[in-house]
């Protein structure tokens, strides 16, 4: 089976690990081989959380620079920071709602301009799907559902050996009962948003 390598980057607290977990469970449901790895040291202290999910025939759980097939960023500057994981064929999906690092708040560093950021990624990767996932999460009923919105977008790209149904099934069985409805709505909103973005690009 073909190997598909996905990197998810986020800021601690954005739900990266749950998103990865849902993908893993969906793979188990779909009977697709899956291996994952995460670096979450001090996530709760505002650091970066990176996870890698490898589908198909691979023993490795981590992904080398330039070898990700898909990069999903829950925060735009973190997406840009992780571009070293991409190659010219990588699909990049990013939230456009910044979480400004504290270093910028205290005047040590400048947050990248969002238009420049998108242009840079577009030039380098095969495809960029960028939209405000935070707004959609709020629309779904909880700002914490950013992770599910982006999963929706990820599945829409059809780069993974998983269907919407697999992922929704995983959401239903593996996320907290009280949030299932919001999470599924968020997933659908992300799916449609990615569809809309690709349509505009093709037009």
């Amino acid at each position, binding site marked *: 089976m073909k190997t598909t390598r996905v990197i998810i980057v986020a800021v601690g607290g954005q739900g990266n690990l749950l998103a990865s977990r849902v993908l893993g469970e969906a793979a188990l449901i779909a009977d697709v081989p899956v291996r994952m*790895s995460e670096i979450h040291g001090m996530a709760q202290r505002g650091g970066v959380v990176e996870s890698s999910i490898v589908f198909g025939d691979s023993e490795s759980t981590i992904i080398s620079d330039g070898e990700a097939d898909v990069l999903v960023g829950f925060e735009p*500057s973190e997406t840009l920071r992780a571009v070293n994981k991409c190659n010219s064929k990588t699909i990049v999906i990013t939230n456009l709602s910044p979480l400004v690092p504290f270093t910028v708040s205290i005047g040590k560093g400048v947050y990248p301009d969002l238009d420049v950021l998108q242009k840079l990624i577009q030039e380098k990767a095969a495809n960029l799907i960028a939209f405000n996932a935070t707004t959609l999460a709020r629309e779904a009923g909880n700002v914490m559902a950013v992770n599910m919105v982006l999963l929706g977008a990820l599945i829409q790209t059809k780069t993974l050996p998983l269907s919407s149904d697999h992922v929704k099934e995983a959401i239903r069985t593996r996320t907290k009962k009280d949030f299932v409805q919001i999470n599924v709505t968020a997933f659908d909103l992300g799916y449609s948003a990615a569809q809309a973005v690709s349509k505009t690009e093709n037009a």
Partner: protein
Amino acid sequence: MHKLLQDHPGQKILLLGNESIARGAIEAGVAVATTYPGTPSSEISMNFFQVAQESDLYFEYSTNEKVALEVAAAAANTGVRSMCVMKHVGVNVAADPLLTLAYIGVKAGLVLLTADDPYMFSSQNEQDNRYYGKLAGLPVIEPSSVEEAKEMVPYAFDLSETLGEPVIMRTTTRINHSTGPVVLGKIKKINSKGNYTKDPFNQVPIPAVARKLHKRLLDNLEKAEKIAENSPHNFIIGTGAWGIVCNGVSYNYVRDAVRDLGIKTESKILRIGFSHPLPLRLIKDFLKGCEKVLVVEEGEPFMEETLKAFAQEEGLTLKINGKGEGLFTRLYEFNPGQVRQSIATYYGIDYTPKALLDLSDIPEIPQRPPNLCPGCSHRATYHEVKMAAKGMETIYPTDIGCYTLGILPPLSMADFLLCMGSSVGTSCGFSKTTDKKVIAFIGDSTFFHSGISGLVNAVFNNHNFTLVILDNGTTAMTGHQPNPGVDMNILNLSRYGRVSIEAVVRGIGVSHVTTIKPYKVKKSIEAIREALNYNGVSVVIAEEICVLYAKQLKIAKGKPFEVTGKCKNHRNCLNEIACPAFYIRNDQVKIDPDLCTGCAVCAQICPENAILPIKAK
């Protein structure tokens, strides 16, 4: 029911490496588990802690790794299967009992799990603990995957019982923090009642006994070597002449590389999962069929050096390489691309790696270092110490915990650190050889772990420094584990005692002891100033529950503050405290109400009194 207790053999579930290890122990019928928490091992014991609430497993958070191993060693010597879990540097602390436990041996299985941390994702060094196997004369086993980790734990228990020796199981972060599908096995019934028969001339290593026991250990090591020869965890794949020897996660990268490079027929892989003692015969036979050999192992050239020695014994002259120019390094962790490249280079395979993107036009992206949480009381204490020490030339020995993040500007309150508890011992040295004011910081859990003996030393030898104990009522850094100072009633757990830090400090004989509430800025500064002016050993205990923990327990009470129109932009708040709840909008400091915990520390240092609670609307 806890998910690791489900009794559905054959079912496939997704587990984190650390969950898989805990499940392996449960399947092996572990009856006693002990630990001192440390990343990347912490989730193993967190799961034991939870499982123990609903099963016959006895689990404890011990005060440090040495004690944890001693508890487990005794339990195992009463015939009860025991496991002791720690991060790699924890084994340094446990090394003293470990090396003699190897002489004494065990009556039931004892597995010492060491979680090594190549690349130092959350550690102060990347020591390779396979050497503890060599040093202690104990077997070492190492899994390559999440699933194998579960399989290896029962194997380790059986091996330990066959040899009558503790077994070291060594993982790395990429096993502990990887996730994969695991097939559940049968759960063995727990036998938690031990039986002790006196046998002092085998269990009290006075010299005459120890001389006998050392010989016994060497005999056991020979037995272990024979077992390693036929262990299912040492195996060969392929029949080619290009030899590759690997262990741990490197095995996965090698498997992928061999497939990607299309060298299945040319190559022959020896995967070592039982890495001490190394299987002499198996390796010699392997080497004989190879043109040359590449050793792929993270960390030190542990296998490489032994392989070279074996080859020499056999009179083999084939090239054996691993660490070296153009191949592998002893630094950090490996990755699949790097292993693929090194194999291609070594065997002269035509291979062009995926072109890396040109990233030269990417602007500098602002760093996002982990930071003390909004409202963290350590930030307040650091500010107060700084104020109290104004005008003094200071040295700030620090210790291991969240508060090590005080190294970051603008706090910059960390100067020197070696290991758990070193803040106290090093303060003794600094205060002896300099005239600077030495002010050390240590957390509550770390104080219990290994700060106490340093403090006893300080009182006895009459040193001169101030120790600030940052007591936030939990072991915060590793995920809020209990420690001896914690009120366990908060968790509705009743079988625990509680040790008062202040009583310990006074009992040691420190005569100047003050307890402060760090959210009260002025009072705290005054109290600290007094402590700093004291000639001799003084201790300040800063008491405030970890803000993150309080939130989790739903006992956080603070209401958010805001910067009002009275602000004249002095920015003392931002420049001195730098709480992550601050941000700047239109050149004015603002407070994010979602992040503010209402600690009111910034409000107390604002010269205009411009920071006030948000009025209820």
